[in-house]
């Protein structure tokens, strides 16, 4: 039986103001299951609750209702969180640290030993084509370079689960292709990946399963190969499916 890495059951999240009055219901009764070895795409329009869902999985915010399990544990449990790597939507790195120090810092946070951290950092900087700028402070980096440093930081502890929030945001076409290839290699090596993206071509290329969320609800999802097989235009299969599911939801409303 395949292990469930992330499990959400009936999850709801309502944000409240200072007086505890409800401001917005970001997630409404979401059920989700990510199994070991999946490259799972969470797709949806802006404000659909993708980032809120990811933050609940990471234990950064608590669900108002329902349960979230990470490796079968509470997401706030240290034992669960030490097994994951996380790339936030915006790569806000410490501007005064060099690329090498940044990756070493995250290695330190993951509890890696100094020698192992150094070796892994050198390996990742090489793989992400950052070796030549490893001694430069990241404050002066372009958005794409900063994104690659953040990806290296997310991967430094060789996590079992990698959570990527808009991984190709800010990258040029070549950088995007390289990240897709990297995710493909990681998945082939057995890593579980949960990612969000607005680039549906990329999601179609690298994910094996997807969930479509809109206004905090899951409105579709399934195995990418099945969605492509059922589509008229194979190249735009996921885009077609995405639009169809959103239109169906609007009709229901």
């Amino acid at each position, binding site marked *: 039986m395949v292990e469930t890495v992330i499990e959400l059951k009936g999850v709801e999240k309502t944000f409240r103001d200072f007086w505890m009055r409800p401001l917005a219901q970001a997630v409404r009764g979401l059920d989700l299951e990510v199994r070991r070895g999946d490259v799972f795409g969470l797709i949806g329009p802006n404000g659909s609750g993708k980032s809120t869902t990811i*933050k609940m999985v990471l234990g950064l915010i608590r669900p108002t209702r329902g349960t979230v399990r990470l490796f079968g544990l509470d997401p706030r449990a240290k034992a669960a969180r030490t097994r994951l790597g996380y790339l936030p939507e915006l790569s806000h790195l410490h501007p005064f640290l060099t690329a090498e120090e940044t990756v070493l810092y995250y290695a330190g946070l993951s509890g890696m030993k100094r020698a192992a951290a150094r070796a892994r950092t050198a390996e990742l900087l090489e793989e992400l084509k950052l070796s030549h700028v490893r001694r430069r402070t990241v404050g002066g980096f372009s958005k794409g370079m900063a994104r690659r440093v953040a990806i290296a930081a997310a991967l430094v502890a060789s996590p079992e689960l990698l959570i990527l929030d808009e991984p190709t945001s800010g990258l040029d076409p070549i950088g995007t292709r390289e990240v897709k290839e990297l995710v493909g290699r990681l998945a082939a090596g057995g890593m579980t990946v949960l990612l969000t993206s607005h680039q549906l071509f990329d999601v179609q290329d690298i994910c094996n399963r997807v969930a479509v969320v809109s206004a905090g609800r899951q409105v579709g999802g399934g195995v990418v190969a099945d969605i492509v097989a059922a589509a008229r235009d194979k190249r735009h299969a996921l885009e077609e499916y995405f639009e169809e599911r959103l239109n169906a939801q609007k009709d229901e409303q």
Partner: protein
Amino acid sequence: MGRFLAITRTAAIETMSQPLSAILFPVAMLAVHLLPALQYHRFGAPGRLARETGLSALFVFGLLFAVPAAARAIGRELETGTAAAALALGVSRPLYLSARIAGVLSVFALFFVGVFSATALSSFSCAKAAEIFTAEGVTRVWGPAFAVGVSGALMAFAGAAFLNRFMNRRFCMWTCLLATGLQLPGLALLESAEPVAAALPAFGALAAAGGVYVVMAGALATRLKDNGVAACVVAAVAAGFLSPVRCLVPDMRAFWLAEGDMSATMPIAAGLCLMALWLLVGCVSLERKELE
């Protein structure tokens, strides 16, 4: 422990890398040397003048760089999501907050060492200044200790610029380190600078009070923006001078411009208790905060 040190080190580097720190470190050292020299002929009592200039510099310049640094070290991290990236990796929130504040406090401690050394040097140079009587009055000739102190503060910029240009080191951070390091000869003169050695408890007590404001700023930054934190800390300092809420802020009247023979045990103990209290407030606040 490794995680704590990684976060502390990063916070310390960030604090020293701020241009404000790079300006205030040497300027504070310079003020400690120049103010007694400029005011000497008016007040006399050079040892006391040097000592109290040192205490003022420690408190005023120290808070000017450390309070914004503490607010930034926590508030900006929470706002930009950098904290979320660290907390997502299994770092507990209390450990994160404590380590970030410890990073800023370690730089404040470095500043304390620098200012105290500069004060010892300044006190020594005041005591050794030669008086030459001329027809126009008394002219004071300052000795080599004064030259060492003043040039040390100025050389910090030059040294840091050299290290930045030829060895690619961080300019601001090395300005802070050199500004402190070049005042250390003052510690060797501590025996000769008797009034400063006796004032060590007052320096310790004032540093403890400064530490409280730094921790308070870090704790408040879990909920407030930079300006809000600054306003609260200014109000707390004023409360300490005027009508202290003793259980929340240090009683500044107890040791501000203190006499050399004061006992520092109680103020330091009270300062440590208040730091622990504000750290607890910050930990509870961060623990309950939703990192949206």
